[in-house]
Each structure stands twice: as C-alpha cells, then as structure tokens.
C-alpha cells in the first residue's frame, strides 16, 4: 500500500473515531482520535498494516493531557502519530499492553511520571521511581513542585 492508500484506508475504517488529520510532511502524519478508539486502531495498524510501535509519549498541555502513540510503517517510511486528548478530571485510557508487549513498559512509565491510568494493564508496578516517592506526585506534570525538603539545590559555595 502506498502512503495515500494507508491514510485513506484508516479514514474509511475509523470514520467515527478520527477527529482530525494533520499531514505535517511526507514522512509524518498526526491523527487526532477519540480515546475509546485507541485499542482497535492500534490493533489494526500494528497487526493488519504491519506497523512498528515506536513509543508513546504523554504531554501535559495545560487544559488536558495528551498521549501520542507513534507508529512507523517501514515499507513506506511513514510515521503515524495517534493523538489522544484526555480530560484532566478523568485520566484513564485502555491499555495497549495486552495487544503487544512493546507497550508494556512505556505505559508503566507514563503512569508514574504523569499519572495516567491504563485500564487492563497486566503489571502496573513502578518502573523508574523509588518506593519512597510519594503517591500522587507526578514529576512531568506542569504543576510539579519539589516535595523533598531535604534536597540540596546549590553547589555549596
């Protein structure tokens, strides 16, 4: 399939789920989708279109949280990013880890650094932060403030 066919195919298959398509360049396409659709769209692009899961990245943009799921279709050299916007009051989305193993760790990471819940994740333990890190403090959020009063932030000179 060529680049246009892939994009048309996605648009036809998931008409109700896609809210916006932004073609940044020949190599990059950003597709805004509804959060409920992520599992079926990821399943389709990973297994049927043979894409590779690059990574997901969570972003705190003032009024909501965004997760971008980056997929590369190597044959046509196209990087498709699914953009999901989550309401800050309800930070929940379906987990992709049961679909493919590659999403396992990144969801654990996003969960602890941004505090987004992944429903149905098989193993939601902490990945990076230590055990004494307080619950409910997420370092990559915009409103993060230092919680550890004993930390030294100067060079002592």
């Amino acid at each position: 399939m060529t680049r246009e066919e892939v994009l048309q195919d996605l648009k036809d298959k998931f008409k109700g789920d896609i809210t916006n398509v932004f073609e940044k360049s020949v190599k990059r396409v950003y597709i805004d989708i509804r959060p409920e659709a992520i599992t079926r769209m990821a399943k389709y692009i990973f297994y049927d279109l043979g894409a590779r899961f690059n990574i997901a990245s969570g972003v705190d943009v003032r009024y909501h949280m965004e997760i971008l799921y980056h997929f590369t279709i190597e044959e046509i050299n196209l990087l498709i990013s699914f953009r999901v916007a989550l309401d800050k009051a309800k930070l929940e989305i379906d987990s992709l880890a049961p679909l493919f193993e590659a999403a396992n760790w990144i969801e654990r990471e996003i969960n602890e650094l941004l505090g987004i819940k992944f429903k149905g994740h098989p193993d939601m333990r902490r990945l990076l932060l230590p055990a004494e890190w307080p619950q409910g403090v997420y370092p990559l959020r915009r409103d993060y403030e230092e919680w550890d009063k004993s930390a030294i932030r100067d060079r002592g000179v």
Partner: protein
Amino acid sequence: MAKTIVPIGPYHPLQEEPEFFTLTVEGEKIAAVDVSVGYNHRGIEKLSEMKTFDQSTFVIERICGICSTSHPYAYTRAVEDIIPVEVPDRAKYIRTIIAEGERIHSHLLWLGLAGHFLGYNTVFMWAWKLREEILDVMEILSGNRNNYAMFKPGGVRRDIKSGDIPGVIRKIDSIVPTLEMLKKAVMDDPVLHARTKGVGILTKEEAKGYSALGPTARASGVARDVRKDAPYGAYDKVEWKMIVTQNGDVFDKVLLRVLEMLESAKIMKACLSNLPQGDIDLRLKDIPPGEGIGCAEAPRGEVFHYVRSDGTNRPARHKVRAPTFMNLPTYKSTIVGETISDATIILAAIDPCYCCTERVAVRNVKGKKLYNGEDLVRLSQEKTEKIRKSMK
C-alpha cells in the same frame, strides 16, 4: 523441583541503565525473569525542559556515554523537524562520520565484554586495545574521547580540518585488517560456535511483537535500520549495505556486530574522502511552535526523540526513547529455558549491560548463598573450557 531466585544487579560498571534482574531458576534451567530499572533515572526529560534548545544538546549527550552521538543526533533532527529545515551537506557528512565512529567503538566495547564472559579474556584485551585507536580518531576529529559535543540544532559545532583527514583515513585503514581478523576468528572458532549457536534465540515473530530494534532485530531476520529505511545524514550518499542475519541466537548477534563494524569503517572512509565544502551551521534563531520527531540509528537500535515547542526558547516537552527500552523486555523470550551458565552471555547479547555478572549472587529461597558473580562467570568460562577440551 524447588524454585530458586537469582537476583542480578542492580550495579554493574558498564551499562546504560543499571538494571535489576530477578531470575527464577529450577535447577539449572531458567523459568522466569523479571527486570526492574530506574537506578539510573535522572529526570533528563524534565531537565531538558528547563534548558534552552541549544543547551539541551549537552544534557541529551549525557543520557548515555556510549550513545553520546545518537541522542543528540535524534534530538537535533527533531528540532529541525519542527521548523522544518535541512542542514548543510558538510554538516550532514560530519555528523555521519562521528556517528559511525561511535558505532565502531560501541561494538568493539561490546565484543570485548562478550569475549570476557565466554572466557576469552584475550578477546577482551584485543578488542579494547583496538578501541583505543578509534577513540584516538574521535579525539582528533572532535577534541574529546567521549561526549563529542559536535551537534547543535542546525548543524555541527566544529569543523573537520582538511589537514586531519589523511591521518584519520590512515588510522581507519590500520584498524580494518584487525577487524577482518576478528571476523575470521568469529566465523572459524568451533568453541565459540558451540557456546553461542542456538543459544538465546529470539524468533522473527517475537522480535516484531516486542518491536525490537537495531542488532537485536536484525539478527532475527527483521531488516530494520533507520539508516536505510528513512535515510538521514549522508547515509543515502555513500555505498553500504545493511547486515541482516536469520537465526536470532547469540552467535548471529556477535557476527552481525563484527560485520557492521566493517561497514561503518567503509562509511567513515567514504565520507571523509568525499567531504563537501560549504557551511557547517544554519545559525537557527527562533524555533516556531510545533512538534518534531527525530530518529537516529544508535549502535543498539533506533533512538527516538519527540520535541514539542511552544514558541519560547525552551522545549515544552521532550520525550526520549532509547533502544534498550524496547530491547530489554525481549529477555522474557530469550532467556527462559536456558541454563544459568548461558545466562550471562544472553543478557549481554542484547548489549544493554555486560558487567551485571560482577554483582550476581545466587540465593535459594532460604537465603543461603550458592554462587556469587564470579562463580557465574567461572561457570560460563568452565563450560567453554570443557567444550574446548572435548573438541581436541
């Protein structure tokens, strides 16, 4: 049979992320593995958001000392993708030269340690001696043995002087015969075959499922290389071929890395002798709001950077994905069912860390110590010795 838990880690002198492995073993066979990371987490993504686009390059460089070119490469490409701009040709060539030099030194480093685990300390010393030569080349080109600080958004910081080029090419020429010798040694050595063939196999389907990258994927027959798939830098301007092997075992990973070093030497030489004239920097001023994605093929696989700008002089969000993040979970399929004496080399084969074995301690459930790290390396080395004797 009673299950025994083997903790490996978390400290080992030579890896990107100090990991902590918990192997569950039944007698000699490994039944399950669990990985815990975070011993190296320094919050670089957050730090990068506190610095300007130009300063961030230096933070990014210090994500990993071995990949200290690949990360800035991917980052600068991501920033250039926001605008978007293309860097001048001369800058592209210089970037490629530095990236390939890094690949040679990283693979040599890995080869030496893999040799150490198999009981070939000669390989360790030889590979690292050879590595000094390539570090000299890097010192001539960039001024430092590691952390080259050559990259900046829009170009490179330092030019390659035309007077240096003949000397550097001579140096690379002197490395190639030794690499050829290494290749021959790997292909011919029956002991190495016995120790690594059919060990720790990652099948093609599994490699795809884990989205494995770099040599880990290529050794399993997945032809995946950013340098070929989405050529950047000077990779589409010089002749080279992607190395792919089919079996996915440790032997294929060793062979693949040795062959890749030869290709890298070829690319370096071609770039140095065809270095175009011109500017090396675009002198970018403002970064407009937007998003950019940059990829680069590190020695371990694809490095992926996502940068979002909101129009200020700092990145609003910077996401870094190192290749080991995707490659590490493949342990779940490679290590289960193998014996303990093969564990060290399988853990090393993915090239995340090598010296984990220095801190291994095998304990049974009651807490009685059975083996420590040295014993595990000894076990591995004894097995090699046994095979060697039986072949005589």
